[in-house]
């Protein structure tokens, strides 16, 4: 009994220590950003590995999600004779929720885990130590560009996800099921608001981008420098960032749409 309480306390302390380290790290990263802007080459390189390489999975998933929504939405709406509103349904769910959230989840799995593994292995093989001894600060040289690249890539990926999803819905709804072409777009335009929906969706994906890359970069940097430590850190990145995304989504939705 006492032991259990103690282990609980230990875990709690551990958690707060990690949280503290994560905050110190993000402050260091943010401090490094202005210097980083002088070396755009580093950022471009990272946007390539974080953003461009995630493109395929995002675009393909977006198209399929849009198609499924087209199908499901049509089947529901046709009962009410309201299949003209298919565009509204597809667009609103994508722009407000599915775009930012699913993109962030896929991003955590595709890019976040890769970031953690890469940084963790660099730590395990002493590459980060070697950089420090070469008077190169790994936080600024390795972590900051990756963080910035994730933060920039996420909203772009989410926008592409939503846009492709709307096209997927169009393909199924208009192309296959015969919803009126004009109605699909015009109903959508009259119900989707630039500020309420699009802008808020972009804000969401910016927040998710910040949090997911922060977690990924921190887990890698904080990993125990062994193969097991890195593999655990990678798992933690995916689990923690998924939970963080879903939790934050609820909070943001409550703040934005009420």
């Amino acid at each position, binding site marked *: 009994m006492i032991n259990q309480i103690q282990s609980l306390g230990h875990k709690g302390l551990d958690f707060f220590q990690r949280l503290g380290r994560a905050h110190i790290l993000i402050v260091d990263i943010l401090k490094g950003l202005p210097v980083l802007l002088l070396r755009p080459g580093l950022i*471009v390189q990272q*946007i390539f590995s974080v953003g461009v390489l995630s493109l395929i999975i995002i675009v393909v998933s977006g198209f399929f999600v849009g198609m499924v929504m087209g199908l499901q939405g049509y089947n529901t709406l046709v009962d009410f004779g309201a299949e*003209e509103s298919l565009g509204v349904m597809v667009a609103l769910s994508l722009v407000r929720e599915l775009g930012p959230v699913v993109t962030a989840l896929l991003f955590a799995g595709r890019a976040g885990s890769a970031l953690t593994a890469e940084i963790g292995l660099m730590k395990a093989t002493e590459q980060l130590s070697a950089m420090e001894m070469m008077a190169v600060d790994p936080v600024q040289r390795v972590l900051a560009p990756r963080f910035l690249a994730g933060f920039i890539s996420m909203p772009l990926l989410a926008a592409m996800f939503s846009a492709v999803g709307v096209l997927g819905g169009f393909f199924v709804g208009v192309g296959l099921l015969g919803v009126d072409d004009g109605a699909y777009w015009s109903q959508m*335009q009259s119900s989707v608001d630039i500020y309420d929906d699009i802008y808020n969706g972009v804000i969401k994906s910016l927040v998710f981008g910040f949090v997911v890359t922060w977690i990924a970069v921190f887990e890698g940097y904080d990993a125990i420098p062994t193969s097991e430590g890195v593999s655990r850190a990678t798992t933690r990145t995916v689990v923690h960032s998924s939970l963080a995304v879903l939790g934050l989504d609820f909070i943001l939705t409550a703040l934005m749409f009420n």
Partner: protein
Amino acid sequence: MTTRIAEIWVGLFVAGGIAALFMLAMKVSNLSTYSSDSGYDVTAYFEDISGLKVRSPVTMSGVRIGRVKAISFDKQRLSALVTMEIEGEYDTLPDDSSASIYTAGLLGEKYIGLEPGAGSNDCEEFSLDDSGEIKIEETKNTDCKPSTLHQGSEIKLTQDSLVLEKLIGQFISKFLDDDKNKKEPAK
């Protein structure tokens, strides 16, 4: 060389992302219906606006000419005060136009439809002449124009939203009455 390829890809990626944002803004959302030069505000009182929302369309002859800017409740008049923003280019709407709340389709969105009035103007003067007949005279005022809706004007003639529940309620009670009337003579 490899950095070059990476740079090209990143360029395409960023361009694609921005294009997607642009498409969401222009094709998916209502940004294209926001006019650049702001229009003028017109108010109207309705007894019942249920279903109408801020940013619902305001149309005339089926063409969108503005949108609902604000909805509030007037405590004195105990009715809803709707402020509409009409786009600046539509500056020739007669000031006795009427506003009704319609529904697009059976379950669709509510919108406000304006119908142009005859256009009252101050160009004519009414007076009773000696024989007691109404005499209409053109005023000498040369710069008289038909008066139009402008910033702050109020649309007096309004018709409320058709509420489906009320309609069904009326229909049912009428149906029941008919039923009763039919049964009564049989007794």
